[in-house]
C-alpha cells in the first residue's frame, strides 16, 4: 500500500511540576492517500497529542517529542527546519480543532482569516485571486450565502457554520491530509451528521486523506476506512472498519463497544468496564489495561504485550492473542 504519512514509534512526553508524564508511548500508524483513518479512545489516551505532534504543535515548555519518526512523503517532519515546517503546517497538512469558536479569531471576519491563510502559503497570489480562492473555499463547505458570510464575524455564525468555516480554512491550501480533532464533539447530532457528510464529500472531491480523532465510536464506524483504538498512550488495536467492529479483539475495544447503548442493550444492564482510566503519570506495570481487564492473566501484570498481526491488517496488543 502506498503511504502518504507514516508514524513510526512516536513518543511524546509532557512535563508537569518536574514530573515526566508519558503521553504517547510508541505509536505506529500510516495513512494512504485518500484514506480516512479514525483514532478513537477516551480522554487522556494520547489521541490529541498524536494530532498535535503531526503538526509539531506540542507547546515547547510543556512537552517534547522524545522519539520516533513522522515521515510525510518520505521526509521526516521532525527533522524539518521552521521554514520547511511552515510549508507543511496548514499547507500540505491541515487541521481542524474541536471548538471552532475558540480557534477562530473573534476580531476578523471569516473571509479575511481564510484569505490570510491562502496568502501566507501562496505569496505570489494577487489580492483578487486570494479572494476568489476564499470564496471557493467557503462554497466548497456548503456555507449558504457564502458571499455575504465572507464578511461575517465568527460570533455571527452558528456552531455548525463556524466549524464549516474552520474546515474551509484548512482546505483552502489543498492539503493532502486533514487532521480533524474531535470536529463534531461540540455540535448537535443533526449538525454533526452534516459535518461528517461534508468531510466525506471533500475527501472524494480532493482525494484527501483524513485523520479523524474522536471519542465517539459510532462516528468512527460511519466514516473511517481503518480504525485505531488508543489506550494509555498506545494503539491497542488497529484494523479495517469492518474487522474492528465485527470482530473486536482487544478486551478494551470489546468493553468500549459494549458500553455504548444500542437497540440490543435496551432493557439490559450496560456492560461496563470496571475501574478508572489510569493517570498517565501513574501507569500500572505490565499491560496498562490489566487492572480493568476481564481476561487478565498473570503475565499481563508484569510484562507489556507487543503488537502482533492476528489476521491480515488486524493488529492487536494483547497477550490473549500471542501463541
Amino acid at each position, binding site marked *: 500500500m502506498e503511504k502518504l504519512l507514516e508514524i513510526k514509534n512516536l513518543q511524546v512526553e509532557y512535563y508537569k511540576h518536574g514530573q515526566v508524564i508519558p503521553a504517547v508511548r510508541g505509536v505506529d500508524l500510516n495513512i494512504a492517500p485518500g484514506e480516512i483513518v479514525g483514532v478513537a479512545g*477516551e*480522554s487522556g489516551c494520547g489521541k490529541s497529542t498524536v494530532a498535535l505532534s503531526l503538526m509539531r504543535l506540542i507547546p515547547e515548555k510543556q512537552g517534547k517529542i522524545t522519539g520516533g519518526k513522522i515521515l510525510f512523503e518520505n521526509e521526516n517532519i521532525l527533522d524539518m527546519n521552521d521554514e520547511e515546517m511552515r510549508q507543511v503546517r496548514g499547507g500540505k497538512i491541515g487541521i481542524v480543532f474541536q471548538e471552532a469558536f475558540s480557534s477562530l479569531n473573534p476580531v476578523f471576519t471569516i473571509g479575511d482569516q481564510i484569505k490570510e491563510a491562502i496568502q501566507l502559503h501562496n505569496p505570489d497570489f494577487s489580492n483578487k485571486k486570494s479572494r476568489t480562492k476564499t470564496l471557493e473555499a467557503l462554497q466548497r463547505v456548503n456555507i*449558504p450565502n457564502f458571499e455575504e458570510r465572507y464578511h461575517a464575524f465568527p460570533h455571527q455564525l*452558528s*456552531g*455548525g*457554520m463556524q466549524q464549516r468555516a474552520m474546515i474551509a480554512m484548512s482546505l483552502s491550501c489543498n492539503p493532502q491530509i486533514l487532521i480533524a480533532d474531535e470536529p463534531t464533539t461540540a455540535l*448537535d*447530532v*443533526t*449538525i*454533526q*451528521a*452534516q459535518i*461528517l*457528510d461534508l468531510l*466525506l464529500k471533500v475527501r472524494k472531491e480532493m482525494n484527501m486523506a483524513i485523520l479523524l480523532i474522536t*471519542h*465517539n*465510536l*459510532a*462516528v468512527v*464506524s*460511519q*466514516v473511517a476506512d481503518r480504525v485505531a483504538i488508543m489506550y494509555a498512550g498506545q494503539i491497542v488495536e488497529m484494523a479495517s472498519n469492518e474487522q474492528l*467492529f*465485527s470482530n473486536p479483539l482487544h478486551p478494551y475495544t470489546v*468493553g*468500549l*463497544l*459494549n*458500553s*455504548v*447503548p*444500542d437497540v440490543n*442493550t*435496551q*432493557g*439490559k*444492564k*450496560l*456492560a*461496563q*468496564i470496571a475501574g*478508572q*482510566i489510569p493517570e498517565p503519570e501513574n501507569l500500572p506495570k505490565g499491560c496498562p489495561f490489566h487492572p480493568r481487564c476481564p481476561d487478565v492473566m498473570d503475565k499481563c501484570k508484569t510484562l507489556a504485550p507487543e503488537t502482533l498481526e492476528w489476521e491480515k491488517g488486524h493488529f492487536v496488543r494483547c497477550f490473549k492473542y500471542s501463541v
Partner: protein
Amino acid sequence: MRGHRAGVKTGIMPNLLEVKNLKKYYPVERGVFKETAGYVKALDGVSFTIGEKETLGLVGESGCGKTTCGRLVANLLKPTSGEVLFDEEDIFDLRGKQLKSFRKNAQIVFQDPYSSLNPRQKIFNIVAEPIKIHGLYPAKEIKNRVEELLKLVGLSPELAKGYPHQLSGGQRQRIGLARALALNPRLIVADEPISSLDISIQAQIINLMLDLQDKYSLSYLFISHDLGIVKHVAHRVAVMYLGKIVELADTDTLYAKPLHPYTKMLLDSVPKIKTKVTPPTVEKPATETLAGRQNEGCAFYSRCPRSISRCKEMDPLLEPKGEKHYACCWNPE
C-alpha cells in the same frame, strides 16, 4: 418501557409530578435604559407528567430549553407562568417548611461534575451539608451516613477525607449522585449527568442510576441530548424543539414510530455503530433560534421536510395521535 422492569407500568402509576403549561420568558433588553425589546421564549407552554418510579427522558438540541425546564422543575428558577405540581401541590406556592420539604424530595444532579462541587470543601462536607441542613440524622450518625452514601455510589469511604480535585470525572459525578441521594429524595432531575464523561465511565454511572432507581423507587427527569442513552434509561420520552415539546410517547413507540418530522430527523442523525455512511438526512440548515423565533406558524417549519401550507400560518398543538403518543404537528409521519 424497559424490559427488566416490566412490572412498572406507565400510566397506571400515580403521578408524582405534573407540569402544566409551563412558560419561562427571558426579557431581551436594549439601549441605555434597558427597555424590554422582546422576549426569548426559553420554555413556551410545556406540559408533562412523571409517575412514581418512572424515568421521563427529555431530549433536544442545544438551546431548546431542556435545561431551563429541569431547573424550573427543581424550583431553582421561577416560571413566567404555569404550574409544577409535586404531590398535587404547586411547588412555586410553597414557602417555609413546605418548601424545605420539597427541596428534600426533589434533588438535582448537574452536567459538569467539575463546577458543581465546591473545590474548597472536603468530600465529607459536600455530602454531609444537605443532611445537616435538613437535620435528618443526629450529629453522631452523620459520619456513618456519609460513609454509607459513598459506598452506595461505589466509592471508598476513604475518599471523604479528600477534595474534589483529587477525583476523576466519573468519581465526581458519583459524589454528585451521593449528595443528591443524601436526603432520600423521590425525584431526581438529572441534567446531562453523563455527557462530560468518557464512554466506559458513562456506562458505570448509567448502571448505578438504574440500580438506585430500583432500590429507592426514584423518579428521574433525565435530560440529555444523547438519544441512545435516553432510549436505554427512559420509560417515556419527550422531544423538545425551541421551547416546546413536539412529541411525547413511550420509549419503544417513539423510537419505532416517530410521528414528528423533527424526531425522525434527530433519530436519523444519530450515528450508529456498524452501519456504513447514511445518506444526508438534514437538507435544510437550522435558521431559527430561540431569540429570532417568529410567533406565527410551526417553529420547525423552516427545517421541515414535510411542511404543508398550514404549517406556516398556524402553530400546531401537542395532541394525541395514538395510544399515549402525543405529537405537535399538522402533517405527522
